[in-house]
């Protein structure tokens, strides 16, 4: 009897853990594929002179995480569980954005001797990422404060 009583919460914890990892894996797969498609589209549209795809993905991903994190915060309007938060933030946003590709693309500018482009990529990216996350947060804060408190 005590064995069954112990096992039930243990199975439940196992199941919840599995579902959490599944949510992260699924979300990241969606985010990663979306980033690959954005990068491919950016090369089609604007050529490969500047890594627009990575910049767009990182800026949009920063905006979305800022917006969603504030909207789904304990005092936010959106009531979601930990699993859905990880699905969107850790998964989709985490997979959509990439620090490694940004680093590599900056390095490629530098090794080709295009130091100004390398510096420009770093400067524009960091300012745009942080502006986007702040904007997302600010927008969600306003929505949280809207009517019917």
């Amino acid at each position: 009897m005590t064995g069954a009583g112990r096992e039930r919460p243990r199975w439940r914890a196992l199941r919840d853990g599995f579902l959490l990892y599944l949510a992260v894996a699924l979300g990241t797969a969606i985010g990663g594929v979306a980033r690959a498609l954005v990068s491919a589209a950016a090369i089609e549209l604007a050529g490969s002179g500047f890594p627009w795809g990575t910049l767009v993905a990182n800026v949009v991903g920063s905006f979305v995480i800022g917006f969603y994190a504030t909207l789904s915060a304990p005092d936010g309007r959106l009531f979601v569980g930990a699993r859905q938060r990880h699905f969107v933030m850790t998964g989709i946003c985490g997979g959509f954005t990439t620090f490694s590709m940004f680093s590599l693309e900056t390095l490629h500018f530098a090794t080709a001797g295009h130091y100004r482009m390398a510096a420009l990529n770093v400067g524009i990216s960091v300012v745009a990422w942080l502006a986007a996350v702040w904007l997302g947060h600010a927008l969600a804060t306003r929505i949280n404060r809207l009517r019917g408190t």
Partner: protein
Amino acid sequence: MRDLAVLILWVAAGSAVGGLARFFVSGLVARAIGETFPWGTMVVNITGAFGIGVLAALARRQGLLIFPEAWSIAATGLLGSYTTVSSFSLQTLALAREGEWLRAAGNIVLSLALCLGAAALGMAAALEAAGESGL
């Protein structure tokens, strides 16, 4: 069309593993060191940048990446999704909102310097190992 479907499949597979690895590693680091500073995200981004430097060097040396799909699964998928800008942005914003301006600035400067340095180091090390000197 079939090529696109195959590409999507490879990127999805690599991304799923990369995302799980990020979740695991950043959680591990955060639990070990504490969460007053986003070391977890930084460790993930630095190691991922080093890895992509190595991969880029291997890709440059023809024949070292045997399958053409290798870049999709390992670079775009695995390492691309392993690292993250969104968490970096959110954590920097959180530090700034708490008035921890020095830590927010430190997170930006350290992340940029260490990730760019790690990518360069990874590339140089792999080229050196492959018998080429310099970048």
